[in-house]
C-alpha cells in the first residue's frame, strides 16, 4: 500500500476535525477525498504531508511509518490551493527549489527542470516570474515544483479552486495524464463531486471529520450507504418507505419493485429509499408508464439545461406522505420530487407547467443504514411538541437530514394497540413505567426507541450493550449509524455473570474482541471494550450513574428481556439517554453494514 492511514484523529481545541479515519491508498491509485468545506479533508491531507500532527493513529507511506517524521523528510509533493509559488523566484528556480535544497548538481537540475516543464506543457517558460503567468500556468508550475524531487506521493489541495471552468477541465486532463505517466500515488482534495468523478480511481467521502464511505465512483453513486453520501454525490430524492416481504411501499402505495439489494428480515419496517432524478419516469397516465407506478403529481418547475431537462414535480397522490421533510422547514412540507429527463424522453412526452402526470420509477436504492426517522410519542399533544423541540433530538435529526414527526398516542398509557403502526425511531420521555412504554412502542412497529430525559446535554460517552448474540449485529449497526452524527466516545460493555466459571471467561473475552473487530470491519466504528462481572442491568446503571452526559444503546431480541434482565435500569426514570434496539429473534434485522 502506498498510503496507509490507521485510525487517524486530529483535534482542535478538544473537538475532532479528523475523526478516526482509516484508509489504504494503493500504488499508483488516484484517490479523491471529497467533502463539504469544514469536513476535515484538507486537514487530513496536511496530516499526510506532515504539516499538521495527529493526536492519534498512524500514517505510513510505502510501508514506512512517518507519523512522527517531519514534512521535510516525508518526501511528498504538495500542491496548494493558492499555488504558494515563490514570487521572487523564476519558474525555473521554483521548480529547482527542492533539488537545490538537496544539493543536486546544476546540470542534473537543469535536466530535471526541462523534463518537468515538458510534462506540464510549459516548455520555455523557465525565466518567467510567477506573476507573469496566468492562473492555470501558475498551477502547472506548482504541480511541476511538487514533482521535482520525485516524491513518493502527490497531494493536491483543491488545486482548481481559483480557476475558471474551461481551464479547470484542461488542467484536470493534464494532471490525470501526468499521474498516469508517472504512475504516482495521488490524493486530491475537493468539494466538487464532478471533479471527483472525473479524476478518481476511488473516492472517499468525508463529513464532520469522518470518512463516511470509500469506493469506486460508480458504485458510490449507485449504492451509497448513508444519506449524506447519497445526497452529496449528485441530486437524490430521499423518501421514507416501508420495507415488506413483498417489496417497497411508499405510504399506501405499493411499488412493485424490489430494491436492488437483497433485503432480508421478515418484520416490516421503515427504510430510507433513494430515487435518483434520472430514474423517475413521467407519463400522461398510470397506464402509459413503462415502469412501476409510484404516484401522481403536478409539474411545478421546469428548467432546460441543454442535454437534460430538470423538473420539480409535486406529489399529489401516492408517495406524498413519504417525503422526508427537511427538519424545521414547514413550508416545504409538500412533497417535491426532482426529475431529470433526456431529450428523447422529452420528445416522447412533452410536459408543460401545471400539468398532471403519472410518476414511475425504474430503480430504487434502499439505504442499508437503520435510524430512518424520528417519531415523538406522548399521551398529550403539548408534551409531544415539547419533546420534539428537544435540542439534542433536533440537532440529531438535522445532522441526519431526517424528519421528526409527532404523534399523540393516548393508548401509550393504556396499553391497547395503536391504530397505525409507528415508524422509525420512537422517542419518549422517561416516566414511571418506562419499560412498559418501550415494550408497547416496539410492539407497535417502532424499530428503535429513544428515551430522552428533558434535561440532557449531548452525550460524551456512549455505552453499547446487547442482551444476546442475536441482537449484536443490529445493535452495532444502530450504534455506528448514530455515532456518525454524534461526536462521542463509544464503549462496548460486555458483562459476565458474577462468579462466571473459568471456562466462561475466555468466551467472554472473545465476544468482546469479536464485537470490536466487527464494529470496525463492518461499520468503521472505533469502539473501546470493557469486561465487567455482575448483573448486567445493575452494572450498566452503576456506570451510567458514575458520570453525567452518557448514553446507552441497548440491543434486545426478546421483549421480555426488558422486564426480566434489565428491570433495574428502569427502577427509577433513567436520567440518561437510552436507545433500545429491538429485532425479534429469527430475523437479522436491518441490513448489515
Amino acid at each position, binding site marked *: 500500500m502506498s498510503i496507509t492511514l490507521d485510525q487517524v484523529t486530529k483535534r482542535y481545541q478538544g473537538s475532532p476535525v479528523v475523526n478516526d479515519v482509516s484508509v489504504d491508498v494503493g500504488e499508483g491509485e488516484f484517490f479523491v477525498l471529497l467533502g463539504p468545506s469544514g469536513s476535515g479533508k484538507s486537514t487530513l491531507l496536511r496530516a499526510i504531508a506532515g504539516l499538521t500532527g495527529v493526536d492519534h493513529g498512524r500514517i505510513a507511506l510505502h510501508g514506512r511509518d512517518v507519523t512522527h517524521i517531519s514534512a521535510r*523528510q516525508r*518526501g511528498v509533493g504538495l500542491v496548494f490551493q493558492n499555488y*504558494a509559488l515563490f514570487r521572487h*523566484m523564476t519558474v525555473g528556480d521554483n521548480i529547482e527549489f*527542492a533539488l537545490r*535544497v538537496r544539493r543536486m548538481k546544476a546540470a542534473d537540475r537543469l535536466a530535471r527542470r526541462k523534463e518537468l516543464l515538458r510534462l506540464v506543457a510549459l516548455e520555455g517558460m523557465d525565466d518567467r516570474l510567477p506573476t507573469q503567468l496566468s492562473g492555470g500556468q501558475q498551477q502547472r508550475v506548482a504541480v511541476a515544483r511538487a514533482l*521535482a524531487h520525485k516524491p513518493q506521493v502527490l497531494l493536491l489541495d483543491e488545486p482548481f479552486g481559483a480557476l475558471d471552468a474551461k481551464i479547470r477541465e484542461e488542467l484536470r486532463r493534464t494532471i490525470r495524464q501526468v499521474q498516469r505517466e508517472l504512475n504516482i500515488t495521488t490524493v486530491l482534495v475537493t468539494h466538487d463531486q464532478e471533479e471527483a468523478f472525473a479524476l478518481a480511481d476511488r473516492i472517499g467521502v468525508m463529513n464532520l471529520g469522518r470518512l463516511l464511505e470509500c469506493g469506486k465512483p460508480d458504485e458510490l453513486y449507485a449504492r451509497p450507504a448513508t444519506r449524506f453520501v447519497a445526497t452529496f454525490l449528485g441530486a437524490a430524492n430521499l423518501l421514507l418507505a416501508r420495507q415488506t416481504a413483498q417489496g417497497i411501499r411508499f405510504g399506501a402505495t405499493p411499488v412493485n419493485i424490489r430494491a436492488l439489494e437483497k433485503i432480508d428480515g421478515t418484520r416490516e419496517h421503515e427504510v430510507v429509499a433513494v430515487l435518483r432524478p434520472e430514474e423517475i419516469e413521467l407519463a400522461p397516465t398510470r397506464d402509459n408508464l413503462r415502469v412501476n407506478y409510484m404516484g401522481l403529481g403536478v409539474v411545478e418547475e421546469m428548467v432546460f439545461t441543454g442535454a437534460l431537462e430538470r423538473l420539480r414535480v409535486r406529489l399529489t397522490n401516492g408517495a406524498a406522505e413519504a417525503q422526508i421533510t427537511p427538519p424545521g422547514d414547514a413550508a416545504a412540507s409538500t412533497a417535491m420530487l426532482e426529475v431529470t429527463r433526456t431529450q428523447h424522453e422529452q420528445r416522447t412526452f412533452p410536459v408543460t407547467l401545471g400539468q398532471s402526470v403519472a410518476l414511475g420509477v425504474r430503480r430504487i436504492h434502499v439505504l442499508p443504514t437503520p435510524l430512518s426517522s424520528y417519531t415523538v410519542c406522548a399521551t398529550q399533544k403539548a408534551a409531544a411538541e415539547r419533546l420534539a423541540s428537544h435540542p439534542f433530538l433536533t440537532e440529531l435529526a438535522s445532522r441526519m437530514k431526517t424528519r421528526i414527526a409527532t404523534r399523540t398516542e393516548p393508548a401509550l398509557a393504556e396499553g391497547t394497540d395503536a391504530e397505525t403502526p409507528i415508524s422509525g425511531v420512537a422517542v419518549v420521555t422517561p416516566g414511571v413505567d418506562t419499560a412498559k412504554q418501550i415494550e408497547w412502542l416496539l410492539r407497535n412497529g417502532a424499530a428503535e426507541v429513544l428515551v430522552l430525559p428533558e434535561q440532557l446535554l449531548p452525550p460524551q460517552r456512549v455505552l453499547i450493550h446487547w442482551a444476546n448474540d442475536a441482537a449484536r449485529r443490529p445493535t452495532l449497526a444502530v450504534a455506528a449509524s448514530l455515532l456518525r452524527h454524534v461526536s462521542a466516545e463509544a464503549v462496548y460493555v460486555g458483562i459476565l455473570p458474577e462468579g462466571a466459571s473459568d471456562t466462561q471467561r475466555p468466551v467472554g473475552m472473545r465476544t468482546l474482541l469479536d464485537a470490536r473487530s466487527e464494529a470496525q470491519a463492518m461499520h468503521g466504528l472505533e469502539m473501546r471494550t470493557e469486561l465487567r462481572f455482575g448483573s448486567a442491568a445493575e452494572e450498566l446503571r452503576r456506570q451510567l450513574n458514575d458520570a453525567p452526559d452518557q448514553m446507552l444503546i441497548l440491543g434486545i431480541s426478546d421483549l421480555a428481556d426488558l422486564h426480566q434482565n434489565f428491570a433495574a435500569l428502569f427502577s427509577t426514570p433513567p436520567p440518561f439517554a437510552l436507545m433500545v434496539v429491538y429485532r425479534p429473534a429469527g430475523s437479522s434485522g436491518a441490513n448489515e453494514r
Partner: protein
Amino acid sequence: MSSFRQPSILPGFGLTLGFSVFFLCALVLIPLAALVMKTATMGWDDFLNVLFDPRVLASFRLSFGASLLAATLNGIFGFVIAWTLVRYDFPGRKLIDALIDMPFALPTAVSGIALTAVFAENGWIGEHLAPFGIKVAYTWIGVVVALTLIGLPFVVRSIQPALVEVQRDLEDAAETLGAGRFTIFRRIILPTVTPALLTGFTMAFARGVGEYGSVIFIAGNLPMKTEIAPLLIVIKLEQFDYVGAAAIGFLMLVISFVMLLSINLLQTWGRRRHVAAGR
C-alpha cells in the same frame, strides 16, 4: 485627459485630485519653494562652500550615519519584534503591539529628555553600562538610540502585514519540498519581506535624518563629533544666516525626496507585479 488617466466610471476624480493638489501646493510645495528660492539667492560657490564646510560635512556624516545605523538596528530588531508579535502568542502581546506606536505620539522633546535620563551615566541603564566603559548619552551612540526609538514604529508597522499575509503557505510549501528552518528563512521569508522591510527602513531613515527634538537632549552637540545636521540649521539661524540654514535644509530635503520617491516607485512596481498575479 484620456491619456493622462485611465477611464473609470467613478466620479470625483477632478474634484479630489484638484483639491489634493491645491492643498498640497498651498501647504507643502509653496512653502518648500520658499526654501528653494532662499537657497537660490546664494551663488553656486557659496552653496558649495556651505556644503563642503568640514562642520557641515561632519554633521551630515553623523546625521546620515546615525540614521543609517538606527534604521539598520530597527531593520533587525524591528523584524524580530514584528515576528514575535505576529508569530507567537504570549501574555502582554496585545499591550506591546499597541505600545509600538508610542514614538509616533510622544512629543519628541519628551522622548529626548526621558531617554537622556535613562541613558545618562547616573540613569537606570546608563549606570549599568558605565562600568564597561560604554557611554550612551552625549555620544554618537545616544544619537543612534534616539533615532532608533523614533524609527521603530515605521519598521515594525511595515513588516507586520507582510509577515501575516502570504507567508504561511509559502513556508509550508518550502517545508514539503525539503527545506530546513534556516533555508526557509533565508530563501523564502527574507526575500518576500524585503520590500516591506525596505519601505520601513527608508521611512525610519528619512525620519531620522531630520529628527531634532529628541536628539539634541541626548547628543552632546559637540561640533564635528556629536552635532547633527538639523542642529546646524538651528545654529545657522541663531546667527541670522537664513541662507546657510536654507542651503543645508534644501540639501537634506533633496536627499529625502529622492529616497522617498525611490521607495514609492519600488512599491508601485511591486504592487503592479502583485496585481498582475491576481489576474
